[in-house]
């Protein structure tokens, strides 16, 4: 077992180094920071209706999405952004993490080494489990800074903590939905199939939400948790979490199985 542990540690060390050196890490993090900035702009507009009116269309849109300029609205927008945008941005990270081995043709250097293949796949999933919450946390912290800068009314430490908890829960759900993305990046040996999958699920989630089936459609569940359709009257059922967990398990097992068994004739 020591050998296996060592193999896993080696694989994890390698994944961290690759992620640290990659511009993808920086770019996705920076790119997603647009979220707290946009929310901050909405807050500025909502705070000053006079200025908002003079800005025409933008203020009308801001009214539509946000409502009032206060902390719960601002933080709620961040959570909503992660629950929907995360399905794409976090899928990009996942697609890169798994697909890059095929695009850079480095996969062949990972297959015939003493470190078992499952350890390499597990290390990637573990890295992702740390990377995605880190980005969410960054969005949240920057959101707090921007909120303070804009001087949004209605601060309450309790609301901030509960929003943070919600953000992490949403991130965990989005993370669990990333395992099929990893699978498609591996089987598709690149970036396009997983991203195609991510956009498809995002669109289907919108449709499922609109039809009222969101609670049973895994990719709509994070958005439901972020109360994107207004505050829930009842807490979400365990079944909703169950379907997300089921997707996670299926995706992980399929990815592991593919790495263990599939012919690696290319790359």
């Amino acid at each position, binding site marked *: 077992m020591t*050998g296996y542990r*060592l*193999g896993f540690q*080696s*694989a994890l*060390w*390698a994944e961290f*180094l*690759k992620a640290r*050196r*990659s*511009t993808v890490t920086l770019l996705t993090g920076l790119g997603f920071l647009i979220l707290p900035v946009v929310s901050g702009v909405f807050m500025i507009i909502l705070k000053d209706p006079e200025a908002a009116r003079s800005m025409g269309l933008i203020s009308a849109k801001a009214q539509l999405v946000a409502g009032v300029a206060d902390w719960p609205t601002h933080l709620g927008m961040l959570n909503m952004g992660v629950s929907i945008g995360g399905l794409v941005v976090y899928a990009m990270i996942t697609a890169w993490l798994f697909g890059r081995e095929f695009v*850079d*043709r*480095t996969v*062949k*250097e*990972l*297959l*015939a*080494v*003493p*470190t*078992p*293949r499952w350890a390499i796949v597990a290390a990637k999933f573990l890295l992702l489990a740390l990377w995605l919450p880190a980005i969410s946390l960054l969005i949240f912290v920057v959101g707090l800074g921007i909120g303070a800068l804009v001087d949004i009314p209605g601060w309450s430490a309790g609301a901030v903590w509960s929003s943070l908890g919600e953000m992490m829960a949403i991130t965990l759900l989005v993370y669990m939905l990333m395992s099929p993305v990893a699978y498609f990046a591996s089987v598709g040996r690149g970036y396009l199939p997983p991203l195609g999958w991510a956009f498809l699920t995002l669109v289907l989630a919108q449709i499922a939400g609109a039809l009222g089936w969101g609670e049973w459609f895994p990719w709509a569940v994070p958005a439901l948790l972020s109360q994107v359709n207004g505050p829930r009257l009842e807490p979400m059922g365990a079944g909703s979490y169950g379907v997300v967990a089921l997707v996670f398990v299926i995706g992980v097992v399929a990815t592991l199985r593919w790495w*263990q*068994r599939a*012919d*690696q*004739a290319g*790359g």
Partner: protein
Amino acid sequence: MPSAIEIDGLTKNYGPVRAVDSVSLQVGQGEIYGFLGLNGAGKTTTIRTLLGMIRPDAGAVSVLGQRVGPGGRGPWGRVGHMVEAPAAYPELTVYENLEIARRLQGVRERGRTGEVIEQLGLSPYRDRKAGKLSTGNRQRLGLARALLHRPELLILDEPSSGLDPAGVVEIRELLETLTDQMGVTVFMSSHILTEVDRLASRVGIIHHGHLIEELDSGALETIRERRLAVRTRDLDAAQRVLEEAGLAAKANERTLYLQDGQAVDAPDEVASLLVNGGAAPTYLAVEQENLEDYFLRITGGER
């Protein structure tokens, strides 16, 4: 002593295409086995199967006495490999790429990465990003990775590809040193015949997925065709003189070729014959078919 590599009836299909067809071969320990074939002949498929990257449709593959199983099981800590063009993480330096390999190989000695960088002449590029390396240096990086864990068996796909002539010689010497001094077995594919010719102790020729010939480098010496090449100022006159003496000669632009054993064994007599016949030779040489000619002859000259 068990074989370092044992391939028994290996067959692999890609859809309707049979890439490798019932290939069986053995490589003894300490041997340098040259695996020759044109592009698409089945070399890389065979190598990937040896490394457990591809599952055979039929047949079995053993490496260092261990059956290469599904899920990538195999004695990989004792095998160094380089499959097709070596790949590296472009944003990582040479050192970092090798550090990843060192850890995945389970090599505990930290200094080993520096050693292998030096061994392959990569010291000036130690901190250069792999994406900015020349093809030759990327090849060296691939070889460094293959040698990092001091393997007993090296499985190399076209190891000299992309190297300049000096680099080719350097790698040849390195492989010779590894086999001579450390008893490393080398299984290398190539389409550069001179490379295999000089290095390999045994050669297998694969063509359209079939292993069509397997020979020792010593055997090659005996089965290669020899011929006598003759040039004179008047090729037609020389050909007439030779034919009158009962020696068949084939003319090829400026040269006559004689394959008759008698002529090849006694070029001096051929010279006298030509001088006496008034067609004195300006050039006379016994030429031995090289591996390339032999290869083209037995594969039907297809390129």
